[in-house]
């Protein structure tokens, strides 16, 4: 964004690119270089951003640090989503940057997304020079003011001696407790001032204590409730993944032998192909999971926040249940649903202490419960009715799953019908494999997140499942991905519509379709224009061959334009604000069909 006149002298300065970090000794340097030293110290190898006037000093410092690889995104939103994909695939903070003004404001969507999905991101922005702050100078925006609700915390650094320590603290805070995004805003003149800096001695202003642990008494009471439960459910959210608690979660669930349901964000924390798994909860979740939740007598909520997409009508949700709520963020406890047994602490640590206390759980006491849950599981599978002519998105996604499941791919999605179908038909047996915009529902998240995830996990097969609406929102991701030969594989369920909005207009607005039709898109040609491979799948017969062809591409991004049925709706559907009896399990359109359904 914007530009700065380049002085004649600057162009002639001798430059050398060091292959090793510069001397890691205390020395005089510009604050911008001290900042980059902190990035190196924090292990930042990948950095997504777009330069501009106010961040030029930082980019100039980066010039000497080839070990911090920069990816030039074509819009800052892509940078922040890429940092998010990187963070969620690797478990380490993602780092992104934008310049002052529009560069910074373009980050806000991605920061808000990361805030709601608890994704650790460090965003670095430039600010106008100190003397011009508050004077409405060129490309000034009050980004710290604007991102107060979109970050865990942010800083505007006035003092050059505090730049490095603030960025260091930002890394600490992003990962501390409930993870999330932070932002550091540095005025251009502050970047340029000289400081005495010792890369080996950086101290943050605040110290962050380890998250508190629940008391022995509260653990004992929760364990007693669990031991008494006759119809328990383990309700797993994204916190199980953030806290790297999969192993402990599996131990815990196997100890009880209880049904395990995950949220959209929790997918993969517990192996979904395991017999204890009852699938995904919520609006478009598995009917079995929702019935199990509704009829349970004890919800064991692990790193989940009783979001409206899971509870729907809150006061009709799980009416017979007591609640054990294990949660790292105390402000989540009693926010939506009162916790009878609150356990405030890091999920992994809490489970390590809780599991031994429930070792005596008698599996016979839930045998009747399992008979009931098993009945639901058998009675309400996912089903789709593929015909010979037109591709159903469910069929395409299911086929992609069957083709790739043995490789445990990382799968990102955008937002809408394709996202829900991917969540339904892709089963994940490992954490950090399913990366989607859960809380904010950000169309355009999928491709940047796939790029970031692929950069962080270069050996993993990385797929992005998108829709034609979402694909266009951050389409220029393809330029950066092709420039760096990042071999993401993008499968666009192209139904020439904003499918989910179309579905709501059909069901709740008496088919008054408005502003949802998007004709004449040739996505394969768009991909080719960006230097990617573009493929098309036009009929059900094309699917397997085209997908295999796409999966063989390893040196550049590939986009598969999947020509889908235009009017297929996503079921089960449990409309917002309703109780569970309003859940519609099967698509009424296929009632009495002679087509053979595929069940999963």
């Amino acid at each position: 964004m914007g530009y700065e006149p380049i002085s004649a002298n600057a162009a002639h300065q001798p430059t050398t690119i060091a292959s090793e970090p510069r001397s890691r000794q205390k020395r005089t340097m510009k604050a911008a270089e001290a900042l980059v030293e902190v990035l190196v110290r924090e292990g930042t190898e990948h950095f997504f951003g777009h330069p501009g006037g106010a961040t030029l000093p930082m980019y100039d410092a980066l010039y000497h640090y080839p070990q911090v690889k920069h990816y030039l995104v074509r819009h800052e939103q892509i940078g922040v989503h890429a940092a998010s994909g990187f963070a969620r695939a690797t478990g380490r903070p993602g780092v992104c940057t934008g310049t002052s003004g529009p560069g910074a404001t373009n980050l806000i969507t991605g920061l808000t997304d990361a805030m709601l999905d608890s994704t650790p991101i460090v965003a670095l922005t430039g600010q106008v020079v100190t003397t011009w702050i508050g004077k409405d100078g060129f490309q000034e925006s009050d980004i710290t003011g604007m991102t107060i609700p979109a970050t865990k915390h942010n800083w505007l650094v006035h003092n050059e001696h505090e730049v490095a320590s603030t960025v260091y603290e930002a890394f600490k805070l992003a990962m501390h407790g409930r993870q999330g995004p932070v932002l550091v805003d540095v005025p251009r003149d502050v970047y340029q001032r000289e400081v005495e800096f010792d890369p080996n001695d950086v101290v943050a202003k605040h110290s962050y204590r380890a998250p508190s642990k629940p008391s022995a008494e509260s653990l004992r009471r929760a364990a007693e409730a669990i031991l008494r439960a006759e119809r328990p459910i383990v309700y797993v959210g994204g916190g199980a993944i953030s806290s790297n608690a999969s192993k402990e979660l599996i131990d815990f669930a196997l100890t009880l032998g209880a049904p395990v349901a995950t949220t959209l964000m929790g997918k993969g924390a517990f192996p979904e192909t395991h017999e204890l798994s009852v699938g995904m909860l919520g609006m478009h979740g598995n009917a079995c999971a929702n019935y199990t939740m509704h009829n349970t007598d004890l919800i064991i909520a692990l790193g989940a926040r009783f979001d409206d997409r899971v509870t729907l009508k809150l006061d009709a949700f799980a009416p017979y249940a007591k609640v054990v709520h294990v949660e790292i963020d105390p402000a989540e406890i009693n926010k939506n649903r009162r916790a009878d047994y609150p356990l405030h602490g890091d999920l992994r640590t809490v489970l390590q202490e809780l599991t031994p206390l429930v070792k005596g759980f008698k599996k016979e006491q839930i045998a009747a419960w399992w008979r009931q849950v098993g009945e639901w599981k058998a009675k309400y599978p996912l089903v789709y009715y593929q015909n010979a002519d037109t591709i159903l998105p469910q069929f395409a996604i299911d086929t992609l799953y069957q083709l790739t499941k043995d490789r445990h791919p990382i799968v990102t999605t955008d937002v809408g019908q394709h996202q829900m179908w991917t969540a339904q038909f892709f089963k994940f047996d490992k954490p950090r494999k399913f990366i989607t915009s859960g809380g904010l529902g950000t169309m355009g998240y999928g491709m940047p997140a796939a790029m970031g995830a692929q950069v962080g996990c270069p050996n993993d097969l990385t797929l992005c499942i998108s829709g034609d609406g979402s694909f266009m929102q951050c389409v220029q991701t393809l330029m950066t991905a092709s420039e760096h030969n990042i071999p993401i594989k993008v499968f666009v369920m192209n139904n020439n519509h904003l499918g989910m909005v179309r579905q709501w207009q059909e069901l709740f607005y008496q088919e008054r379709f408005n502003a949802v039709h998007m004709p004449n898109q040739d996505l394969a040609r768009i991909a080719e224009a960006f230097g990617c491979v573009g493929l098309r799948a036009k009929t059900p017969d094309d699917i397997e061959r085209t997908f295999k062809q796409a999966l063989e591409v390893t040196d550049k991004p590939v986009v598969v334009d999947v020509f889908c049925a235009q009017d297929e709706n996503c079921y089960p559907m449990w409309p917002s604000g309703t109780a569970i009896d309003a859940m519609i399990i099967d698509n009424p359109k296929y009632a009495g069909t002679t087509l053979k359904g595929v069940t999963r």
Partner: protein
Amino acid sequence: MKHTIIALLENEPGVLNRIASLFRRRNFNIESLTVCRTESPDYSRMTLVVDTSETDAELVRKNLAKMINVIDVQDVTHEPIVVRDLALVKIKADAAIRAEIMDLVQIFNAKVVDVSPDELVVEVVGYESRVDNFLNMLRPKGIIEMARTGRIAMPRCGSTPHTPTAVLDGHLSLTNDQ
């Protein structure tokens, strides 16, 4: 019911903005809010009154406690506390009613802090209900303008002090466990 919450904040620019933003975003309705300096220049102290349920007051406290610039938060509603509110009232007081006003000033142990031939400025301090009563008595006489501090509160003698030193020495926890 009315909850009184005391918080110790870092004395930095923008902290009040962050707190205001939290209340707006979470839809917490503030009855009164006072922020002032403490005995240490690095910290300021906030007294907050919210009229809300026990559950929501707990959420207010927990959300405040999460903020980086908030050092300590305590809901002191159910603790023995001393509470004060101060009002300055400018009132019409010509010769015809001045004596009557002066009677009220005396009854409420208030203080005249400025005077002109037709007006008085009166200062009254006490529990809010006492200030309310005084204002109710004055209102028919014609209040010209009025300013109030809102509640400030302090736990009574013998309880753990809410001071920077107490927090930094570890007597008070940064966040409260369940």
